[in-house]
């Protein structure tokens, strides 16, 4: 009995290791096979790439349509512009809201909460029509505007309102007595106090906008230069037999979000669990 009890922590660790292996298996396949030749992949898909070949990556980067380079560039531009506008807009909106009467605030938050539930397919068609009216269809500004107004704003405001409630009223009053205006108080005093909220909003909205599929596919259209996500979808089908090429392209497409995630994973998980356990 005691022997079993002494074994149990070890069994636990082994089990956990097995679980981790199960989890990484598909990602492991993507990584190792990006560095193998086609015959090697077919012969032994799960083996390590020894010796590794860089041919797949080279071919992917040398494509005449520049799928990877243009896709990464377009995704970076879209994400950077969307998030750079989303953060000040949603934070200012939230601060403004957090200083309003409770009932008005609850009403506005209810309207925003409804937005979180709307499947993107429901508003896709009319969004394209609105962009056409203002002459921004098939353009990056159009995509960025619809990112800003669509579901991400709701999410950002919810994160900020939660944090801004904890900013003491006295701090704001004191600044006001010193003659600071609303924008100044918000930007110089409140924003530094809610930095964790800004980190959460920045991380999650970047990730979602980077991975977004429907909006770039239908708002930009196939001819306007794709983000990496839609570019993959539109071009990769033809490689379904050439595993080397497929894994090479996917490896290069995945590397930016994965490295970004590894860099900020502490904040990523903190942001995720903050909402779920109160």
């Amino acid at each position: 009995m005691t022997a079993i009890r002494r074994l149990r922590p070890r069994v636990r660790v082994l089990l956990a290791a097995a679980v981790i292996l199960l989890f990484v298996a598909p990602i492991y396949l993507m990584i190792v096979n990006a560095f193998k030749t086609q015959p090697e992949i077919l012969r032994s898909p799960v083996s390590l790439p020894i010796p590794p070949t860089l041919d797949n990556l080279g071919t992917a980067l040398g494509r005449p349509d520049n799928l990877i380079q243009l896709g990464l560039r377009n995704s970076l531009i879209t994400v950077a512009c969307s998030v750079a506008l989303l953060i000040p807009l949603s934070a200012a909106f939230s601060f403004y809201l957090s200083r309003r009467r409770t009932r008005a605030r609850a009403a506005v938050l209810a309207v925003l909460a409804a937005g979180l539930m709307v499947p993107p397919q429901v508003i896709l068609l009319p969004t394209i029509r609105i962009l056409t009216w203002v002459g921004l269809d098939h353009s990056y500004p159009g995509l960025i505007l619809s990112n800003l107004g669509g579901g991400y704003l709701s999410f950002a405001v919810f994160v900020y309102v939660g944090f801004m409630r904890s900013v003491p009223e006295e701090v704001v009053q004191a600044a006001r007595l010193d003659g600071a205006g609303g924008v100044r108080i918000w930007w110089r005093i409140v924003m530094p106090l809610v930095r964790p909220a800004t980190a959460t909003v920045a991380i999650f909205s970047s990730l979602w906008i980077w991975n977004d599929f429907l909006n770039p596919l239908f708002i930009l259209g196939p001819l306007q230069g794709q983000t990496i996500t839609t570019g993959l979808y539109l071009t990769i089908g033809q490689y379904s037999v050439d595993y080397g090429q497929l894994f090479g392209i996917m490896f290069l497409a995945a590397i930016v979000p994965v490295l970004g995630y590894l860099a900020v994973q502490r904040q990523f998980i903190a942001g995720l669990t903050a909402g779920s356990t109160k």
Partner: protein
Amino acid sequence: MTRTSRAGRKNRAGGENRGLFGFAAVAFGLYGCFLVLPLLLSLRSSFTNENPLRATSSFVGLDNYREAVGDEQLRASLVFTLILAVGVTVAANVVGVLFAMMLNRTTLSYRVMRTVAFLPQVLSGVIVGFVWQTILTRDGLLNSVLQRVGLTDEPVAWLGSPNLALVSIGVVVAWILTGFTTVVYLAALQNIPLELNDMAALDGVNRRQRFTRVTWPMLAPGTTISVTISLITVLKLYDVIAVLTGGGPADSTQSTALYIVQLAFTSDRFGYASSVAMVLLGLSAVIALSVTNVLRRREVNL
């Protein structure tokens, strides 16, 4: 008189906040233009026979909704979507609780697991879809391994036969979501005071009772979040299914989200697509609200 004084008070606050009000107005305006307005336009379209190939469109009243009631393909897509949503939610949450209990307190694996479990969420549905496609297609990696080991002679059509395709998609989506559910449950587990378990142990409660009476109820707030988000995610899922099967074979894995896009962009039936979109919205709202309601009440009752 009251009006001026109220206006005066407003003005004072407004003077301080004018810049801030500007930001807030822009933010709310964008939300109105790109969420509320599209929603209203979609509702309006659902009563018309709009078609981008025709210049004019006219109101057809409830015709689209009447058509929706008899639409076999819509019914099939709703059934598929609901089965997938319920199946994936149950699987991802059961496995999430199991993983969380297994990983709780083993610090090293906890840290590694947390990092690793989230990778599927970080990758786009398109990449996840293609990786799994290389694994699951007829001449894919899973079949080649199974055949080499001698478990099957014939390659299995994981994505090629209707029932297996449903299960395969479910496994992939559950794989994506389980990282999220595991971390939510882990966080909830670590919020349970240790004394509670010790007290239960002192009272001679066995392991099963300790789970059903102590751990599981204490996980309630985590469950609410985890179940609701799982359901909403699957109800609007598009990219993973589009890549894995594209709705096939023979429309058997066509979710309602895919059907809407097909109606709008392949069949050019904007009006009807909008009414199907309204059906999906109504369904999502009813499911999300009632599930949250039930789970919240459970939290309060503790």
